[in-house]
């Protein structure tokens, strides 16, 4: 990943965009071909819409798959989550491929609720072969597709599923198939996200750590909309946490210390995990419940499974169906097939490897 560059750019971008509220155009692109169906990928909190804008995230790169790519520039091997999640190795060695479509939206200059409107409108255009939203200029039509999301994309797909505002996507015969996969999805707000909201006014507030995460500055609508009070309020009104179909969650393994990978900090790009863990301690929230949902680095795990099965945590507002599917050592920043795949991740016919969750998506999500 391009984490250091990303954070630096976010720090600048957040400053530049702090006083603006202009959301930018949504895009839709076919990234990889495939013959067995379509998977739509919705990225996390970033503005991947207009490369010419200051708020454009370098994580998005110059390629619609950029957000999902493990960049070679900082030690990655060029794999991307999008590719890995759309290829399946069959028992006879043959391959099944799925088409990968990327939706790029503005998750910085608007609340996740408004970003949801943009994404949902784009998905409806994809389902109908129209271009009402402006994202589907090629009039691509896919009447059915699966959905894989990362980070803030979790809040977006959860709102689409919970609200029933878009029955053409989620109702009977709707375009979205099966169980969406949320990789480190921000399904509920976090206390620590809220804590970081105030860092700009603090002279000594966790300064040694905050300097590292300056790019987190939550002084924009996208960040603030994902804080705890905001998301829980929406959940209690029925607009979140009410998915009537299973959402397959790729969660982090949790734990204290680094908040999300038990203080093991020397796995390539995750060297920043220890500072992140110290930050969690600094802001006073070290349990996974409290750190879940922080943007960028932390997984979110606030949801309950009915009957408390499969490791679900109870939040009464989350009456929907959220399945703790894969617990990945990869953290929020890295589980887009990241550093680990170089040594440990690969596609195989009869299993997957949690450290590279894309292998699990490709083999078992459909």
């Amino acid at each position: 990943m391009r984490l250091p560059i990303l954070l630096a750019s976010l720090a600048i971008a957040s400053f530049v965009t702090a006083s603006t509220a202009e959301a930018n155009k949504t895009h839709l692109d076919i990234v990889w071909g495939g013959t067995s169906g379509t998977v739509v990928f919705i990225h996390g909190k970033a503005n991947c819409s207009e490369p010419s804008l200051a708020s454009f995230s370098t994580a998005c790169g110059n390629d619609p798959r950029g957000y999902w790519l493990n960049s070679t520039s900082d030690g990655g091997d060029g794999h991307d989550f999008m590719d890995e999640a759309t290829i399946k190795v069959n028992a006879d060695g043959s391959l099944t491929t799925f088409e990968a479509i990327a939706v790029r939206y503005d998750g910085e200059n608007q609340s996740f609720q408004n970003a949801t409107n943009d994404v949902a409108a784009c998905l409806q255009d994809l389902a109908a072969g129209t271009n009402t939203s402006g994202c589907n200029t090629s009039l691509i039509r896919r009447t059915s597709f699966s959905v894989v999301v990362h980070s803030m994309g979790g809040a977006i797909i959860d709102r689409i599923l919970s609200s029933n505002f878009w029955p053409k996507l989620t109702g009977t015969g709707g375009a979205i198939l099966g169980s969406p996969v949320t990789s480190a999805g921000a399904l509920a707000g976090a206390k620590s996200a809220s804590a970081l909201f105030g860092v700009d006014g603090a002279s000594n507030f966790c300064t040694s750590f905050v300097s590292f995460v300056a790019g987190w500055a939550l002084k924009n609508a996208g960040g603030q909309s994902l804080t705890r009070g905001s998301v829980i309020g929406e959940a209690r009104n029925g607009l979140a946490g009410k998915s009537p179909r299973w959402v397959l969650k790729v969660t982090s393994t949790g734990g204290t210390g680094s908040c999300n990978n038990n203080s093991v900090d020397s796995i390539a790009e995750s060297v920043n995990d220890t500072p992140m863990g110290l930050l969690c301690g600094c802001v006073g929230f070290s349990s996974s419940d409290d750190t879940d949902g922080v943007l960028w680095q932390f997984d979110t795990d606030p949801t309950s499974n009915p009957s408390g099965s499969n490791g679900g945590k109870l939040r009464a507002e989350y009456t929907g169906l959220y399945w703790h599917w894969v617990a990945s050592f990869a953290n929020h920043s890295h589980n887009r097939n990241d550093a680990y795949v170089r040594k440990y991740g690969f596609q195989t016919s009869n299993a997957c490897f949690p450290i590279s969750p894309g292998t699990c998506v490709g083999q078992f999500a459909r």
Partner: protein
Amino acid sequence: MKKRWLVAGALLIVGALALLLYLLGRDAPARKPVTAAVTPIAPAGPPAAPADPADDLPTPPADQISPFVPERPPPVVLPPDTQQLTGEFVPGTTEWEEVPLGEGRHEVIRFLPAHYNVIAPQPIVLYLEIVDPATGKRIDAALPRARVKPFDAGDDAWIEAAMRDDGRGGDEVAGDHRYTASIQPGPKLLGRVAAEGIVELAGAGVRRIPQALIYTNGPRAHLTGRWRDEAKDGHLVLSPELAVEAAGTFTLMAQLVGPTRQPIALVRATEQLDAGTHWMTLRVWGKAIHDAEIDGPYEVRNVLIRRDNAEQGSYEPGPTILSAYHTRPYRAKDFSDAAYVEPTARGEDIGPTHPSQRDNPPPLHRDEDRPSRRGIRP
């Protein structure tokens, strides 16, 4: 003559090489035709790390690099309009935001809107307090401030207000260190609202804490208080009467609990209604009650009516009714234990290979360039 010997020698060497290759190759299996290879399958195992002298990364936990087959969730047995309830929650509220006062400080700043759903012309009321977690007591927060703005507006849209602890202007108790701001924002704030609490303390600097709420005109519809209930087709059907001031799409959400407030189910219904008085229908899927094994009478609680503007992805909620209705004394076994079966109503499937899509732009990347192909192990 010398040239002949050279030619003969070369032929001899070629012949020897050919013989050697034949002898080496005759025990090898016949080569398969070059087609889509079907490779014998071996159980997956942890892959060997490629040799990379520059790569001194530690080995991750074994469970992360061991073959793994994720467990699939169980079948869905309830329809979208009925969900299992594990505890009551109150629509129109949210949680305290809590952040530490600062580095090396154990006190916590807390910030909460009195209501998440604020229906105009009611004021937006915000609470702020600093709490010592060790004692649970609130402490002096000097003169905190609060401000609000439309969520997606710029910084120039903030409306700021002082917070007070004098028992006036919406503050409930003077001197209790719970500070209150009461803001009458007017129509320009209608919609989602971002709020911020601001504390400035000597030695701690400026601290900000976020919150959110909805400022709304309300659904322009209300429940009249009249309800009906019946067991029908194995399910419990609840029918509240709704008075609608202006036509629209309305979502009704309610929680069904047992006689001692045991949580049973969350139910929802969405209907388009014209102005006038209507009976809405809330169906509680029978299996939710049957499996809960809780006999009635049931109480309908935490009822919220919303006017939905689905095109804009927004909504206008009304006030929450904490206790709306008590049903007749049904028994749990009066209801069906049948699982919900989702209808399969799909039209023609149009995908990338459909003739209508032949003019689609090609994928941005060629299939043979997929990085994962390099790492495939059957």
